[in-house]
């Protein structure tokens, strides 16, 4: 008997589930199970043939079955009327969502973070240094004599004196000497930060801009390592098909020195693309300066240049961001126009 009750319960529930919300089918099921001649009524009739000691329990089970099937059918009917109700109040799903605004990081920050992350992946460490500097760190420690034409490339803002002679760093390179004075090799660092030069402002010049400096020093650090790191950087930053080339150049603090170009990110350096507005048909874009640390720079911080070698590089963040995003006017970075900022 108990087995029949169980079997009826399972079957009734699966029948009800199959026709949820269908008023007529549910009515049919109600008659089938709960009607006067329904299955449950038939089961009640069989109670007389159950052994006396089991009668009470079977009766209880049958009552429970009746209650649960009744409430299942009612529940199912209710959900049918809810459905009708909710379809009447259907929302316009094409209305705009209620704005949940995500702020944007300045494109310069995004570019610095990207550059930093690439070099972190190559084992570099990010450090910073002061913007107000001395002539010593900005020039002399970097083998730039005070009265020499090599200084002409570094026009500099000086500060009204408080006794000493201070300036706004014209590049992030002063951090090289500051870091080396306090740390022992081997190390590899990159240094992002603001720099200042008294340049008249136009679409490609700003008196304040950002640089990222890199410095890697150790017992066996080679020019080939510089090339490998920079090529990895170029490919990560501008895409894996980017090509890189180095041209000999001159910086007082590196020797050998190089200017580093990448293949034009617009025309890819395709021959004959004379009209490319980004590279001017040259096929190459200058992105950074680099070289092996000049032994004189090591001597000035008390390193032994016979035992150590190292490479250094420096890049303009605005230049990289302008290339990457196709921005054609450096002033836009500092206007902070929302319509500009929200694009990145």
């Amino acid at each position, binding site marked *: 008997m108990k087995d029949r009750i169980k079997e009826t319960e399972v079957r009734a529930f699966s029948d009800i589930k199959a026709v949820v919300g269908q008023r007529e089918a549910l009515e049919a099921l109600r008659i089938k199970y709960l009607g006067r001649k329904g299955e449950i009524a038939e089961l009640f009739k069989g109670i007389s043939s159950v052994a006396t000691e089991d009668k009470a329990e079977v009766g209880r089970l049958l009552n429970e079955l009746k209650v649960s099937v009744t409430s299942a059918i009612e529940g199912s009917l209710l959900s049918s009327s809810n459905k009708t109700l909710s379809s009447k109040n259907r929302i316009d799903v094409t209305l705009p969502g209620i704005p949940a605004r995500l702020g944007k990081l300045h494109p310069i920050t995004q570019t610095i973070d990207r550059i930093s992350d690439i070099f972190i992946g190559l084992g570099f*460490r*990010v450090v910073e240094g002061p*913007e107000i500097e001395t002539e010593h760190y900005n020039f002399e420690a970097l083998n730039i004599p005070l009265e020499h034409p090599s200084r002409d490339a570094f026009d500099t803002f000086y500060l009204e004196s408080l006794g000493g002679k201070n300036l706004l760093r014209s590049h992030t390179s002063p951090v090289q000497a500051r870091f080396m004075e306090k740390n022992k090799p081997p190390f590899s660092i990159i240094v992002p930060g603001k720099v200042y030069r008294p340049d008249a402002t136009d679409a490609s010049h700003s*008196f304040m801009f950002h640089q990222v400096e890199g410095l890697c020093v150790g017992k066996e650090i080679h020019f*080939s390592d510089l090339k490998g790191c920079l090529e990895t950087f170029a490919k990560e930053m501008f895409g894996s098909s980017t090509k890189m080339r180095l041209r000999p150049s001159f910086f007082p603090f590196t020797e050998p020195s190089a200017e580093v170009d990448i293949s034009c990110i617009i025309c890819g350096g395709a021959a004959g693309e004379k009209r490319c507005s980004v590279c001017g048909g040259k096929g190459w874009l200058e992105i950074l300066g680099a070289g092996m640390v000049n032994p004189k720079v090591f001597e000035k911080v008390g390193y032994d240049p016979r035992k150590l070698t190292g490479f250094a590089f420096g890049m303009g963040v605005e230049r990289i961001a302008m290339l990457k995003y196709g921005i054609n006017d450096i002033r836009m970075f500092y206007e902070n126009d929302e319509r500009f900022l929200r694009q990145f």
Partner: protein
Amino acid sequence: MRISYNWLKEYVDIKESPEDLSDTLMSAGLPTESIEAIGSDKILEVEVTANRPDWLSYIGVAREVAAITGRKLKIPKIEKIKTPDTKEQIKIRVEDRALCPIYTARIIKNVKVGESPSWLKVRLEAMGLRPVNNIVDITNFCLFETGEPMHAFDLDKLSGGEVLVRKAKKGEKIIAIDGVERTLEDSMLVIADSSKPVAIAGVMGGLKTEVNYSTKNILLEAAYFEPISIRRTSRKLSLSSDSSYRFERRIDISNIIHSSDRATGLICQIAGGQAGKLIDIGAKPDKKKPITLNMVKLESVLGHSIPLVKAKKILSDLGLKPKGSSREKLSFEAPYFRYDLKDEVDLIEEVARVYGYNKIRNTIPPVVEQPERLSSDIAILRRVRTALTGLGMDEIITYSLLSKKTIANAALAVEDAVCVANPLSIEQEAMRPSLVPGMLGAVLWNINRKAKDLKLFEIGHIYGKDGSNFTERQYLGLCVTGEISNWAGGSRNYSFFDLKGVVETLFDSLGVKDILFASARDCRFSDASCASIELAEENIGIIGEVDPSVLNDFDIKSPVYTCEIYLDKLYPYISTKRKFEALPKYPSVSRDISIVADKDTSSRKIMSVIRGSAGAVLKDVRLVDRYSGKQIPDGKISLTYRVEYQNPIKTLEEKEVMEAHGKILHALGSELGAKLR
């Protein structure tokens, strides 16, 4: 420097087109900025770096082309100068041998000053110079050909029959050939006759003794002047010339006599005249020390091995004299025109440069053990930025340099600002003492472009003075202004509490606890809403509504709320460590308390009374409604707090909740006079 393609071909065979030549030069380190066509010629504007003054002459550039292409350098032959047996008619005295170690001069008599032949004019015009007369043109031509600046004086206008190389007397004046009178300082070197300066040495000749069509006899000067002295003079006088440009970069000390002979030869050939004997005063150049290149060091620097024979050939081709070699060492003597070659690493660069940087392989340096890759400060800044953008704030970057007027407009003390000694414009004359003026500038820019809803932040340094030192501190600036609106919720203006909420959420995300906002007064902010932000009894920031008079000076019409947080002071309190706390096992119970209190009872006071009175089962309390108006008497305010109770070790009983709730009500009544609503 301009390089005429046609002219350059006089000194070396050039088979490639001007464009290909420009590529060749670029790969040697001499990049072309532009190529310009002049008639049948092409002019390459090349950018000469400070280390290669030898490239400031045609022979210098031709020598490089010859070295890297393996072609032959063709230096013009100089006819032996016939020197008639004339007596010297001029006395030359060099008073300052330190600034002028070599001075040569030669008298050329009976020249016919006139127009230059057309070939010579073409050369000068290619350099962008206006031909003057044959004598001046020849000295200019030789300057570009040899890199040695020379000057011709009208001999008959030099009074007293002598030439002196001396320091100027303070206040002495000279009218140079550009017609401008200049007052000289006693640090400046001049060429003088017995009475007056006739040239600013190495910079520019004087008008009085210049060679013109009436000149008969000339004195041709070729000398070596110390670079620093020329640079100082040129800078002080703001007078730069083709001549000073070369002297301050150091001319080839071994080439002076050759250059003088070359100019003399051309003068005699073109203008006639009889050349006298060269008067040569000065020391012979110091002997050069050989430089040794160790091939092991070369490979260690480059990470690439280059055969010794290859290195030897490269250096020889560049004009270095071999001074012996062993199995892995090469010794060379650098020529005088390569002052930049002094040490082993200079030779390594030369070998690598000509071998080709791009032929050197690419490797990755070993990763070495270092402290954390992202120092904690920088990691914190990233967290701050992530939190703030998540809260809908846009990051801005404004200039660190401002006008003093902008600083004053923001009600900041101009006299405390760090000032720039050499600003380009008044917009850059001072360094910002606060991030607020820059943020207000950005607000104005956007309001003028119809922005309605601005939430901005900036992280950057501010600058100040501390005694004789400058200070630089990391600040965070925040600002909200305008209205927030959407179709479902309508619109409302931002308030102080919108910004305060951002700040509180930020502190929470940084693990900074127990922040206090204390009512404060600051002339930059309105008296009605301004608070200092305190942490462990230290002031770590300020927040408030920008004072209307400040907004007026910035031409902003709507209220702006700003906050500055002194990140440098906050760093020690920031904790990025998190430890898991087991979730409560037993359910909590929430009860609201609605009270009417005096309007000027501070929220913090009420909170502390609730927290102080409820006992151990209090879990949390927060304000859910604040109301004044109908039904609430004047001077009173209705407040509803939602109090959450929980017992960590068992299910709360109704009795416990009632008891705690009762205690709170009692305390609010007895301590603050608040009544249950």
